[in-house]
């Protein structure tokens, strides 16, 4: 397409959101075990980039890759079945949502923070030699910026002029850690210092992401080397479903007493730090909770899907029709995924 088509981008994002709402429901019902990291809130970043990938392009994903798989065209039923741990899932039920792979799409995930950096660089090296014009995209969070292997990969991609787009989905949190206490310097200086092109974009605005990604992808396809795209976004559910900080805000009466009892006992214990140090410790513990309370993810205005939708309301009937169709589609995907295997 010549320009960003907001209708198709919205459809991609909304489809992904509805899929993940279903995942959330199935996880709450106990049909999906372990952790569950949803991409809700980062749909604009994923859609803006992935919608422009072509056959032969590769993707390196983190532990939060289901939206990218879905938007890349992986069968949603097999994706959902993978999360349900079924033998007919995308990876035979053996990978789970943090370890999704699709060789047909050259798409590989990893639960190791920062690992998408080396992976994308390797995919790009193969593209450079086997599929000229093809690119590799790495998705990772802002916390990964402190992982050596990611920084080393940016350097490697720059020095080898690899066709990589490094996409930082920056929601301002590394699980419960904020960048102020963990990341020194600035991201742009760091990335430019490694010799990569650096761009920032509002990751809540899908059209802006699309345009920024187009430049980065064209640059990579033309053999001009890697671009690092920083897209600020918001994780609507925190780090993962059932995230304690979010739970303690939604259900304080249920969650807080269990936390406060031991905390107060520890605070009053003899032997330990000075009163001043102890109070500073209390402030540190509650800083994370207070930051969550002020968190942007609590505001609907920061929902990228709703933002895109609000730009389409002038054609109310068309929008309504699309929404209904996508909702029906999502329900049908869940129903199909839950169906027993035919004997």
């Amino acid at each position, binding site marked *: 397409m010549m320009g960003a088509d907001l209708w198709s981008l919205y459809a991609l994002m909304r489809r992904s959101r509805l899929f993940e709402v279903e995942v959330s429901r199935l996880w*709450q*019902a*106990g049909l*999906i*075990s*372990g*952790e569950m990291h949803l991409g809700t809130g980062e749909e604009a970043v994923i859609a803006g980039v992935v919608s422009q990938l072509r056959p032969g392009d590769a993707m390196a994903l983190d532990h939060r890759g289901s939206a990218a798989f879905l938007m890349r065209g992986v069968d949603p039923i097999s994706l959902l079945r*993978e999360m349900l*741990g*079924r*033998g007919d899932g995308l*990876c035979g*039920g*053996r*990978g*789970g949502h*943090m*370890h999704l792979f699709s060789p047909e799409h050259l798409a590989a995930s990893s*639960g*190791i*923070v*920062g690992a998408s950096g080396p992976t994308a660089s390797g995919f790009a090296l193969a593209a450079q030699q086997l599929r000229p014009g093809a690119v590799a995209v790495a998705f990772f969070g802002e*916390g*990964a910026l*402190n*992982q*050596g*292997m990611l920084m080393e990969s940016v350097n490697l991609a720059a020095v080898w002029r690899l066709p990589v787009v490094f996409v930082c989905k920056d929601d301002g949190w*590394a*699980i*419960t*850690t904020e960048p102020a*206490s*963990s*990341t020194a310097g600035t991201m742009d200086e760091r990335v430019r210092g490694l010799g990569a092109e650096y761009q920032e974009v509002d990751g809540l605005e899908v059209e802006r992401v699309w345009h920024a990604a187009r430049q980065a992808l064209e640059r990579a396809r033309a053999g001009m080397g890697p671009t690092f795209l920083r897209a600020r976004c918001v994780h609507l559910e925190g780090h993962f*479903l*059932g*995230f*304690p*900080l979010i*739970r303690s805000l939604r259900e304080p009466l249920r*969650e807080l007493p269990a*936390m406060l009892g*031991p*905390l107060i006992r*520890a*605070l009053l*214990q*003899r*032997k*330990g*730090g*000075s009163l001043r*140090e*102890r109070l*500073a*410790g209390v402030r*540190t*513990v509650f800083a*994370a909770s207070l930051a969550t309370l002020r968190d942007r993810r609590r505001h609907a205005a920061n929902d990228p899907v709703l933002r895109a939708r609000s730009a389409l309301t002038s054609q109310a009937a068309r929008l309504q029709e699309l929404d209904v169709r996508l909702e029906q589609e999502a329900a049908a995907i869940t129903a199909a995924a839950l169906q027993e295997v035919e004997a």
Partner: protein
Amino acid sequence: MRSMRFTEAIDDALAQAMARDARIVVFGEDVPLLRRDLLVRFGRERVRGTPISESAFLGAGVAAAMAGLRPVVELYMVDFIGVAMDALLNHAAKVKAFTAGKWTAPVVVRAPCGGGYGDGGQHEQSLWGWLAHIPGLTVLVPSTPADAGGLMVAALQHDGPVIFLEHKLLSESLLEFLGSGGRHTVHYDVPAEGARGPVPATWESLPIGRALLRRAGTDITLVSVGVGVHRALQAAVLLGREGVSAAVLDLRSVAPLDTAALCEAVAGTGRLLVVDEDYEGFGLSGELAAIVAQAGIDFRYARVCTQATIPYARSLEDQALPNVERIRTAALALVGARAP
């Protein structure tokens, strides 16, 4: 006697040691929240969060230990140790040998390990055999709250690097954080005796490298660590009903190994069944067979281990990890009885 949960016991023992020894510091990812009880007591200098930079902060922990601190470095999961392996493999483990014993790195690496809650093969490994393979590393795998606290005190007093592995199925807080996330719709097979138990009023150091016979028996010796000990004990009860008397030896420490207790326990029954949640090949299970064979003991041998990458699907995972039925079947085969 007090009763405590597994992780609570470790934190309590750690707090007691920190109150007595100002050199002990704790750091790792999200530690201000995960160890908030330690933070509000000991302050931000001694309890701190880190960037997601395992190779930097684990390597720094090793050197800080060489320079006088007693760091407890936390990893979110032992699986993530791959990122920081160099600090252990080529530095922590080597410094004592390179200096003919003149310099050591008394760092404690605390890491959750193990599976059984559906997190997939990159987040549920055990890896104690892999770590114990490296000369110079001490590897502890407690199976009860009392052992966990006592071994943490021992680890903090030890003069070299110690990997302290905390099984996630035994840790209520970790299992809640990673496995259930506030849900009541999921159920994991948690061994009750390992998850909560009696602990001493004051923590004393337990000897490192000392196994404990959890159950006496005359026909076969089951040897394990961590959650495997509880699976073996459950299997031993079932075997008892079938006329097979099974002993259960809890190694508690993978490196160093209590070879004397191992050989004595196997010599007594003439049969060794290793229950090891770690990978089967080139690991603890083979090492135990080699030690007993080298001692000249006449014995029969079998093992129930994790043979391949742990599958995500819960039903497959339960089969991949050593379970009670696999242990029972292997034990019956080893004693010559036919499994029904």
